[in-house]
């Protein structure tokens, strides 16, 4: 459905996007995750056709996003980052205006449907400027989907909302998915973790990780905690799958070792055997659960360190 082929974007000397490749199937809900300045918004703008790439190509349903931009834009619904709206307009008038820009057939029905789906019926005649931020976000969503796009792109859809509004907006986004392809851009992990079935992590203009939350967890390096009487470093170092070992003394003079392991490596059994052979009394040996958040932070930190 969406093919991003080796796309670059340069702003003068700033190389904001560096050779991004993405292939998104129809019906997928994809979270584009990364810190501020990672190039996420630039990439979605190139997908939305509002920004041409400096090099590479974006294709939507087989159509070139630049050469066939009019046809491509009809397939897309786009909610930009700051959710820009006309505050002086009434909600229904604004959604209707957007529907007409897309030459939506049966405009009145389409507007009524969009307002209902975004729970805006009760404020349809209110001016946008008088609404709370949560309601304004729903107006932006209604305007983005009034023409029934095949692809919905939401850039930071919950930024600036309070916790109850965030929960409400997430619920709304989930209800809007259906058969639609959705791209949700965010710098907040729980945002995409709870909504998306695929996560693409960006950092410094490149894709750092890509997969379902479960696949990403597989890619995450693990950590095993060992507590024994005496220093286990020598016994553990060299075991296949072990990357590094660091130790500290506990309050009762035992040694706690933190064993960094390679992604997908299972080393507990080997460590247990090695400690028995080294005759080191053992009181704890467990794998630490790695959260997606840990992986995300490690990925963006390793990029910062590089």
């Amino acid at each position: 459905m969406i093919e991003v082929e080796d796309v670059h974007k340069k702003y003068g000397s700033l190389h904001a996007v560096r050779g991004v490749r993405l292939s998104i199937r129809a019906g997928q809900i994809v979270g584009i995750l990364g810190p501020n300045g990672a190039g996420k918004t630039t990439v979605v703008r190139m997908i939305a056709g509002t920004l041409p790439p400096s090099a590479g190509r974006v294709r939507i349903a087989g159509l070139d996003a630049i050469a066939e931009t009019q046809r491509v834009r009809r397939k897309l619904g786009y909610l930009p980052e700051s959710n820009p709206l006309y505050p002086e307009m009434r909600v229904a008038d604004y959604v209707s205006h957007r529907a007409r820009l897309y030459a939506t057939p049966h405009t009145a029905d389409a507007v009524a449907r969009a307002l209902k789906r975004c729970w805006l019926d009760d404020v349809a005649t209110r001016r946008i400027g008088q609404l709370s931020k949560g309601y304004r976000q729903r107006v932006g969503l209604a305007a983005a989907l009034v023409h029934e796009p095949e692809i919905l792109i939401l850039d930071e859809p919950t930024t600036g909302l309070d916790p109850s509004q965030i929960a409400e907006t997430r619920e709304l986004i989930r209800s809007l998915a259906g058969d639609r392809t959705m791209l949700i851009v965010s710098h907040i992990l729980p945002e995409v973790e709870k909504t998306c079935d695929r996560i693409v992590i960006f950092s410094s203009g490149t894709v750092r990780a890509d997969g379902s939350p479960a696949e990403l967890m597989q890619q995450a390096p693990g950590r095993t905690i060992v507590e024994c009487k005496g220093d286990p470093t020598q016994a553990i170092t060299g075991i296949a799958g072990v990357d590094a070992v660091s130790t500290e003394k506990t309050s009762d003079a035992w040694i706690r070792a933190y064993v960094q392991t390679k992604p997908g490596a299972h080393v507990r059994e080997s460590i247990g055997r090695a400690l028995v052979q080294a005759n080191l009394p053992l009181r704890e040996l467990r794998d630490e659960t790695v959260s997606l958040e840990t992986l995300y932070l490690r990925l963006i930190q390793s990029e910062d360190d590089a």
Partner: protein
Amino acid sequence: MSAAFHIAHRELASFFRSSIGWVVIALFLLVSGVWVAFATLRPGEPASLRVFFGASQWLLLVVAPAISMRLLAEEWRSGTIEPLMASPAGDWAVAFGKYLGAVGFLIVMLLPTLAYVALLAAVSDPEYGPIITGYLGLVLVGMTYIAVGMWMSSLTSNQVIAFLTTLFFFLLLWLASSEGARLLGPPWSDALYTVSIGLRVSDFAKGVLDTGHIVFFLAVSLLFVGLTVASLEVRRWR
């Protein structure tokens, strides 16, 4: 094309949804009304609106940039240009739609001044030919001011800058085509008189319908609408 009309409709309505539209209309009617009352509706004065048309040409120099300053500058400032540019409307429809909306507002602003014609007809027997051509001249000069103003508005996200650059553009043009032409003499003066808006408008107010003038105003307007489209394209590619 239909997208351009939807954009024009939204633009026209937005003037009346915010205070700017009402304030501009009120000030224009107040100043032009006072002018007509003191300079035209007096015993012994000719039964024509030539004074009103002459004064309005100068009023439009301030009023038209006030109409055009927000057309795109406000869209850039608030970010509303982004969903507009992501829509299938296209840059021509955006620029032309906004232009049409602003010209529509100009015409709505001039409509109440037909009361001056009614008033003149009530107390005398005016010639309607110069009044019709005078209004045509006002609309054409307003269209030109707005086209230039919209281009200025497409270059900045600051409405004040858009207003001032448009105002000073036409003040400089007026200076060049009057004092400048007199100082430089032929052949420069001939070229400068060609771009003189004042000379062309005064012909309309006298009842002269010169197709050369009409073509001039329409061509300049089209040129600046085209420059606005180019400006949108450049911003997109930057």
